[in-house]
């Protein structure tokens, strides 16, 4: 057995980078990443919707990729860099997607919004936001019960198009 073998009642030491800060934590094997963030670290921006990977409200970035934090065990995140909605703004300036969601009124109640924005950050990095159809398909893991989808697509398309423009101008 390796050093990382523990009984169910014990905790396991893990080291993660959370929103840019190194953190040494001790977690129970049964704790999900979502519950670690919300209940143990007071980072309540990440929302618990269905808790079964079906709604996307809990979406966070792990090593830059999007995941449902409700289905990730905290104990398995050892060594990973995790970014939540709280970590997107830099030096007091909103992330372009946060600003775009406000500009396009891309929410109503706002509960799904942190997950939508984290998901969209990864979507644009994946290079999958090249058309409205593609944005809709590749945002299918984020549900919005208020039905703000049209404006959500507008906000993401706005940022994706602006991101591509400098590249196109440089190519010309």
């Amino acid at each position, binding site marked *: *057995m*390796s050093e*990382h*073998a*523990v*009984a*169910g*009642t014990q905790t*396991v030491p893990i080291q993660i980078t959370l929103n840019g800060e190194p953190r040494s934590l001790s977690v*129970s*094997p*049964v704790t*999900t990443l979502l519950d670690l963030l919300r209940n143990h670290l007071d980072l309540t921006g990440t929302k618990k919707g269905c*808790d*079964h*990977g079906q709604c*996307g409200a809990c*979406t966070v970035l792990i090593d830059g*990729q*999007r*995941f*449902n934090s409700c*289905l*990730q*065990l905290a*104990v*398995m995140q050892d060594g990973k860099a995790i970014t939540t909605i709280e970590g997107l703004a830099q030096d007091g300036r909103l992330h372009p997607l946060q600003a775009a969601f406000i500009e396009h009124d891309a929410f109503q109640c706002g509960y799904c919004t942190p997950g939508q924005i984290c*998901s969209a950050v*990864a*979507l644009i990095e*994946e290079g*999958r936001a090249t*058309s409205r*159809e*593609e944005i*809709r*398909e*590749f*945002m*299918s*893991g984020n549900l919005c019960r208020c039905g703000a989808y049209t404006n959500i697509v507008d906000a993401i398309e706005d940022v994706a198009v602006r991101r591509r423009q400098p590249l196109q101008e440089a190519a010309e």
Partner: protein
Amino acid sequence: MKRFSYHRADSVADAVQALCATPDARIVAGGTNLVDLMKYGVETPSALVDVTRIAALNGIDDTDEGGLRIGALVPNRTVAEDARVTTRFPLLASAILAGATPQLRNAATTGGNLNQRTRCYYFYDTKTPCNKREPGSGCPAIGGVNRIHAILGASEHCIATHPSDMCVALAALGAEVRVEGPNGARRIPFADYHRLPGDAPERDNTLQPGEIVEAVLLPPEAEAFAGHHSYLKLRDRLSYAFALVSVAGALDIREGRIVAARLALGGVAHKPWRREEAEAALVGSPADEAAFAAAATHLLEGARGHEHNTFKIELARRAILRALGQAAAGTPQSQTDKRIA
């Protein structure tokens, strides 16, 4: 979630040993299905064996035989975006993109996709009987709500379906599953990996105690289908839903005639549904609707519906015709633009 002990395995041998030492332990990697089942109390393992740090289970590599080896840990998205997969085995990439969501495809692994459990409502609901969850307790899906259930290969004990899209493509492409266990490594033809429910629906596949999936192997001959393939998935909403019926169709057409064909269905049985007679009916024929209809008849022979899913028999027949038509035309179904051409 019931408490469990946690073991981070550092090698395949270590993982196998841990599984043998604790028979009710489960392998965890992406966790997308297992953690969910644990939250519902459907799975209550006393231990989880974390295999995500085992380098030998990772990577996509060319094989000596000229095919591809996809490590059990490779996430669905990585497979779907790999240039070797998209050029040589595009049917597989397409099927993966038809399933789940970007978040889930980032987490879900190749091995985990094979071993995911059915999404039968009764299997998930621990307050109802279920022969798959509790052998001998009964099957309320028979005579109950069974829209998503099997029309082929079911038994009086279970009418659940295997939910994977990826596995339908792997079945069509004639993949093999490489497993490692206490008695060494072995290769299982994909058709023999999953099983029909029979009188033991609690067993989804032919893995033996202590065995883990090491990799999936794609054979070089399946590259012949790269030009003519389609994965058509029909479901109750356009995205992020399990298949009512899905079709993986692949043809090798030379001088107007089909020289080799593969055809597998998803959403209709306890395993990806493939029959040699259906593919044989295509070989030697022109790629036309008469040949496709003959294949559909063979593939659906013996299909039987239940209260809420008899429509799937005709839906499957039409989907086969459409998917093979798309494959023949070289215009595979888009997984982004869901209009069916």
